């Protein structure tokens, strides 16, 4: 099915009152939870996964799409008003946005972030509609060997290329792979890494791990270094952009969107790199009379560009998730497990087997995007009030919801012990600067990679050279090697050139 007729069908489905209601609820919940400092889209969707028990698949995914975009909007509000970015992608927004807020320009910063997110969301969603089917056509030609190579590439890019240190990124990934191994082996039925505990036979639940990493770990880390006294929330002021603000924002919005989307689509799934690049680009391109605002009073370009890049990249991540079944961000990994709980396996066949679901989902991304820009600016006062919940009550509430979300999965105290145990590990990971997203990705992708590896070797009758004799597989592996060694070689070359 081509994109136009697919979208027509999708909109026909998504515009029913019930589905519009799901989208509205998703946008509202996503923003409300995304606004809370330290909480992002991955955790919000994880906590809402129980709706999959009651709601049919289409409704649930419309809800998740609303949550996904809503939580990103909420995150930018927190970055600007409180200077606490909830996820790595909004660190840059906090950089300039919080400075603008400190100089009484919170209003324009919030507006440019909201409209920038809308522009980026539109570009990103259009990208999904038209790039998605193309990727599917390529993906249908890939066998298990290519898939395995592709997953190796994912592992390398999400853990070693992004973030501060390859060693720490890979360690996080390894921890995730280890958690993914727990349970019954799919092919032989043997229990693995269960240490004789019967509750572990079903494996470690990914929701549990996400909640432990993002909610329990965050709370513990805050308590570790807690100092009495609340953070100051900057006043919102007037939500208004002057003609000059508009002129200065349009370029960054578009550049950020077109920069961010490809980064999301490539299995490099981070939002850090495109937001950084957008920030540096805007800093270079800014008119000389405004150059002094960067890093001092806060430049609107430095909010508009990175915020657009962040949202476009996050939308782009849905392309490999839907078409290849490869999650390249923590949020995508949680969404994938939501699909799995309906017995749906995302991948190239999803577009032919579940066309209604896929296109309704894409159409509801457009709808969520429009809803958010219409809803959020008038409601920003409400979101700012959520930020004023005192720290003790806020984190006590987060722990209660983390507990009920986990205990509800299986009613097992073993799960609670795991939740708090992994939460303690996550606290140390935060302190020692280990990224958390690779844990979730390794956990979801690890078992899939193992299965692809075993299938590929069964097809090749045990011949390991299958990974390097098939040209596409070899190509992907070479890219992975390049991605792992490239930055280091480049650094070494620069160091030599400097000498």
């Amino acid at each position, binding site marked *: 099915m081509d994109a136009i007729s697919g979208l027509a069908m999708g909109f026909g489905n998504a515009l029913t009152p019930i589905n519009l209601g799901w989208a509205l609820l998703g946008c509202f919940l996503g923003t409300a939870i995304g606004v809370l400092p330290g909480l992002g889209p991955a955790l919000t969707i994880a906590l809402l996964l*129980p*709706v999959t*028990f*009651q709601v049919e698949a289409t409704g649930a995914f419309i809800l998740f799409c609303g949550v996904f975009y809503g939580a990103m909007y909420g995150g930018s509000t927190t970055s600007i008003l409180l200077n606490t970015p909830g996820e790595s992608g909004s660190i840059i927004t906090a950089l300039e946005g919080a400075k603008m807020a400190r100089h009484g320009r919170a209003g324009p910063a919030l507006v440019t972030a909201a409209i920038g997110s809308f522009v980026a969301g539109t570009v990103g969603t259009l990208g999904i509609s038209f790039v998605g089917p193309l990727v599917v056509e390529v993906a249908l030609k890939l066998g298990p060997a290519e898939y395995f190579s592709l997953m190796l590439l994912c592992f390398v890019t999400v853990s070693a290329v992004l973030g501060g240190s390859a*060693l*720490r990124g*890979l*360690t996080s990934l*390894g*921890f995730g*792979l*280890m958690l993914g*191994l727990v349970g019954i*082996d799919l*092919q*032989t039925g*043997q*229990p*693995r*890494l269960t240490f004789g505990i019967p509750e572990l036979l079903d494996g470690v639940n990914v929701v549990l791990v996400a909640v432990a990493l993002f909610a329990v770990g965050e*709370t*513990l880390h805050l*308590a*570790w*270094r*807690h*100092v*009495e006294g609340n953070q100051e929330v900057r006043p919102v002021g007037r939500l208004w952009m002057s003609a000059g603000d508009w002129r200065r924002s349009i370029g960054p919005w578009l550049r950020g969107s077109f920069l961010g989307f490809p980064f999301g689509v490539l299995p490099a799934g981070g939002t850090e790199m495109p937001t950084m690049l957008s920030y540096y680009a805007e800093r270079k391109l800014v008119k000389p009379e405004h150059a002094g605002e960067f890093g001092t009073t806060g430049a609107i370009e430095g909010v508009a560009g990175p915020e657009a890049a962040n949202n476009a990249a996050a939308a782009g991540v849905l392309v490999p998730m839907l078409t290849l079944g490869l999650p390249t961000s923590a949020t995508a990994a949680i969404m994938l497990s939501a699909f799995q709980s309906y017995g749906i396996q995302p991948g190239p066949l999803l577009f032919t087997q579940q066309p209604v679901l896929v296109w309704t989902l894409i159409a509801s991304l457009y709808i969520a995007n429009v809803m958010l820009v219409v809803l959020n600016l008038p409601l920003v006062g409400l979101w700012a009030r959520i930020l004023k919940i*005192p*720290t*003790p*009550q806020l*984190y*006590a*509430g987060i*722990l*209660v*919801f983390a*507990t*009920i979300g986990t*205990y*509800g999965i299986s*009613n097992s*105290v073993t799960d*609670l*012990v795991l939740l*708090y145990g992994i*939460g303690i590990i996550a606290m*140390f990971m935060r*302190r*020692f*600067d280990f990224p958390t997203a690779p844990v979730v990705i390794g956990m979801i992708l*690890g078992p899939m990679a*193992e299965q692809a*590896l*075993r299938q590929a*070797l*069964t097809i090749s*009758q*045990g011949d390991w050279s299958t990974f390097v004799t098939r040209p596409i597989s070899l190509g992907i592996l070479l890219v992975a090697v390049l991605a792992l060694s490239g930055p280091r070689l480049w650094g070494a070359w620069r160091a030599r050139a400097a000498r």
Partner: protein
Amino acid sequence: MKQPIAPAGTPGADLAVGLFVMLLGALTLYAACAIPDSPLYAQVGAKAVPYLVGVILVLLGGGLSAVALRGGWSRDNEEAMAAPPTNWRALALLGAGLLVQVALIGWLGFVIAATIQYVLVCAAFGSRRPVRDLAIGIAVTLGAYLGFSRLLGVNIGAGVLEGLL
């Protein structure tokens, strides 16, 4: 040369992290050995990948330890270096909150266990009005319980208060 205030900023702490990762790898290897051999023939059996992951974790832990012995990576981490000292009171109260939940949830049910946890976590973050926290805690946990069990149909288990509702 300014000495870091927090004792956690010394390379010793980084070394402990490296050793912990190695231990994790060793644990994985140990568990991989315990997987029984499958009677089915397979090129890559159930044991291969656990062995691989174990070896990778041991190697990464070794790498981290080597970095720690050369001074560690935390000294370049401004956030960790500038952090205020450990708040033992907050950590202890929060830890008590977690233990209470684990110990009581199966016996007294979610609502009571979570309310006690709520009050303890509030106290950990410096709240000085336990009675008000208790009232808010009951409202929050009851709301969460009813929302999850009635609206979403999630089974949160039985308990003293849950039986009355």
